[in-house]
């Protein structure tokens, strides 16, 4: 008995009131004999109050949120049964509201009962954890202190009333709030409740209303030169919120650039189109039988028998299901984008790899480029280059370029310092150092970059079908729009095969990848 007492002593010291119970429970936890369904009744009943008294704030928040959710459900039930009574003359509304009301009642009961059980179950386990922390650090909460209830009261007073109010009210619509803003501006009086609802429980309130900017157009004068024409906005139109105002400004800016520097964008478009035409001429312009033979031969030389069999099967699928031309179209786009990526990405990568300035300028841009979801790139492409294949290529290039730059730079930076030093010691100049030592040694990394560029181009080219780049992606987007699931699935499989085919061949073709 003596020893048993001693065993419980630290537990009791920690737990304070009711030390006997907690001591025995903790002992069971330590001996691994605590029942699977052991529940602390006091905690289940006291819930967040128990947790607060004991100073376990994690459990407090869990318990508090559970009870809050139950209460909100209850309040929603009340709101919808009242709404059912208010709309008694409209049968369909009554049915709907009564259904919701019943759902929320059930929800409230379930959340409350299951939640309390959960809290009771967690209580001693969390508390034991807290005890372990307390042993290491005596400033961890211990014992039971009613002073902690003050904090509970503050938190509950800050959060619960608003949450309950929100759930008992129908949120005002955005339009109602806009009207309200107007009315206030005109000096009409609006009931406090309505203003409060608009400010707190609906959409985040519109803080600023901006006057409409001038309407700007870029017509041509009699010589055919464009000029800027500003007209003040029409009288009587409502002011704009920040979003619409900024959007208008951006549109004006883009409009200005396309109007006055159109030749620049047209030049790029023309260049891209010419390049694409040359490549398409090869892929699409070659009779299928020759193209197919050529692809098989290339994959055999580069990647060996097994992969060639796979490539053959994939090509057969594409051909049999009538995707041949479309697939070749897609491949031309991929080829065009990949070539541009490599041609621009490689020098950029060299710059990033060799100069700290380059690195500090380009790396953040690449980071941003890689976090933006792919289809967002379609926007600027469309804004400056309208729709079609050239902007599709451009969006693809922006999307697929980062790995080229990154991996080139990485490869250069990983060239061993002593190898470079050796080259210098034998009289290499900077250019020789780059071409004879650094680039060859970085080749595996560069080739990995090319591989990624090709794969990312392929995925982006499919997305670019949304802005009229055509190809396999077009079939999928069309199928989506017209819910022609079958056609979409077939094209999807085609895209997957195409991707796997290209991936396998490019990967195998990379001579340094295996080493």
């Amino acid at each position: 008995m003596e020893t048993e007492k001693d065993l419980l002593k630290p537990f009791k010291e920690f737990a304070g009131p009711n030390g006997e119970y907690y001591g025995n429970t903790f002992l069971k936890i330590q001996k691994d004999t605590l029942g699977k369904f052991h529940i602390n009744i006091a905690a289940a009943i006291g819930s967040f109050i128990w947790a607060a008294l004991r100073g376990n704030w994690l459990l407090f928040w869990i318990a508090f949120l559970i009870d809050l959710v139950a209460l909100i459900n209850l309040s929603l039930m009340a709101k919808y049964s009242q709404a059912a009574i208010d709309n008694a003359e409209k049968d369909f509304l009554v049915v709907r509201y009564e259904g919701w009301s019943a759902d929320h009642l059930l929800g409230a009961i379930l959340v409350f009962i299951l939640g309390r059980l959960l809290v009771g179950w967690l209580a001693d386990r969390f508390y034991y954890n807290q005890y372990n922390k307390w042993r290491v650090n005596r400033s961890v909460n211990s014992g039971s202190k009613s002073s902690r209830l003050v904090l509970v009261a503050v938190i509950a007073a800050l959060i619960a009333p608003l949450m309950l109010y929100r759930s008992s009210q129908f949120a005002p619509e955005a339009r109602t709030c806009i009207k309200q803003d107007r009315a206030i501006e005109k000096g009409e009086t609006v009931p406090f409740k309505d203003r409060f609802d608009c400010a707190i429980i609906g959409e985040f309130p519109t803080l600023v209303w901006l006057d409409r900017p001038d309407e700007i157009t870029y017509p041509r004068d009699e010589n055919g030169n464009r000029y800027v024409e500003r007209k003040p906005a029409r009288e009587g139109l409502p002011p704009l919120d920040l979003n619409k105002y900024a959007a208008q400004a951006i549109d004006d800016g883009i409009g200005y650039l396309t109007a006055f520097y159109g030749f620049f964008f047209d030049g790029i478009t023309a260049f891209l189109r010419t390049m694409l035409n040359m490549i398409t001429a090869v892929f699409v312009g070659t009779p299928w039988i020759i193209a197919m033979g050529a692809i098989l031969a290339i994959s055999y030389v580069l990647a060996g028998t097994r992969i060639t069999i796979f490539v053959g099967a994939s090509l057969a699928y594409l051909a049999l299901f009538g995707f041949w031309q479309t697939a070749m179209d897609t491949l031309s786009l991929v080829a065009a984008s990949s070539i541009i990526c490599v041609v621009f990405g490689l020098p950029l990568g060299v710059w990033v790899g060799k100069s700290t300035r380059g690195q500090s300028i380009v790396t953040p841009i690449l980071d941003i480029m890689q976090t933006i979801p792919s289809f967002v790139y379609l926007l600027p492409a469309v804004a400056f280059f309208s729709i079609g294949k050239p902007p599709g290529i451009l969006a693809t290039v922006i999307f697929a370029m980062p790995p080229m730059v990154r991996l080139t730079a990485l490869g250069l930076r990983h060239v061993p310092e002593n190898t470079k030093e050796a080259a210098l010691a034998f009289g290499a100049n900077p250019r020789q150092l780059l071409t004879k030592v650094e680039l060859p040694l970085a080749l595996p990394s560069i080739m990995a970059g090319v591989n990624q560029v090709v794969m990312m181009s392929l995925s982006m080219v499919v997305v670019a079908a949304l802005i009229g780049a055509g190809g396999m992606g077009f079939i999928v987007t069309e199928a989506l729009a017209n819910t022609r699931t079958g056609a979409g699935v077939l094209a999807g499989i085609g895209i997957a095969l195409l991707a796997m085919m290209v991936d396998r061949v490019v990967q195998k073709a990379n001579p340094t990848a295996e080493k």
Partner: protein
Amino acid sequence: MITSGDENVVVANNVWKIFGDRAKEALEAIRKDNLSKAEVLEQYGAVVGVKDVSISVNKGEVFCIMGLSGSGKSTLVRHINRLIEPTHGEILINGVNVGNLNAEDLRVMRADKIGMVFQNMALLPHRTVSDNIAFSLELRNVDAFTRAQAAEKVIETVSLQGYGDRYPSQLSGGMQQRVGLARALAADPDILLMDEPFSALDPLIRRGLQDEFLALSKVMKKTTLFITHDLDEAIRMGSRIAIMKDGEIVQIGTPEDIVTKPADKYVADFVAGISKLKLIFAHTIMQPIAKYEKENGKLKDIDACPKADTEDDLDTLVGHAVGQDNPVVIMSDGKPVGIVTKDALLRGVQGEA
């Protein structure tokens, strides 16, 4: 100050190298307050690599630089082909101040005059052995045919026949180091810088390469700076040895000087474990015949005694003395000049001349 000329091919005058952004400040402080390496690191965040080193290497000699890891050996030789710029001091090669060369002249000097072998070989893995060897020629835009011929010649010199078309990764470490040596020799430079060329190899192969290199250098007579952290190696290879400690040179001398007259305790500790058999010569340990006869009585029968030359080393003397009761008589120009007793021999082996 030494100016280099016919005799002194490579000369370093008061070379300092301090790594760090505040190197100049640190240099001033060291000169004024004589700070230690640790203090400089603490106060200036700078590392002292080389501290006031002056050396002069004669034409055709193998000059060894010996020191423990981190003592600044690599840093010092990298000054010679200006892979590192000194914080202070100057390097002269055949009388030309390396620090004053422009980029192009520097490249020409590196390519034509100096061959370097690296501690970690630093071969180019994507090139065949021949292409590695001919690298310095390729950098000077020598045509492929000439390059191949030159490579073939040095491949023979380092006995790697038949390996020209392999890749470095297909060769053993010892063979790779020979490729490194061949690459340094390919442009037929006047000066060889060898930074611990054999350190990464196992003792047997190292021994073999040392012998080969010694044989080669007898024929080629290239001025060589040979770095090592192994005193045995330094003694085998070097005609003179410079011992470095914490960036400073603590002693320069012939192997025998170093072994018999260590400048301080640091060097003495090094020398303690070294075999003296090949380093100490008869003239150092012999005593005059007169002195011997005064102590031991008249030498009975000179003809029965084994004979040796003044320039014979301990190893040879021991060979003569084994199985003999008579002392060894040292001859010079056919006349006996001294006596080496067994006691003297044993002392000699201990390193006490």
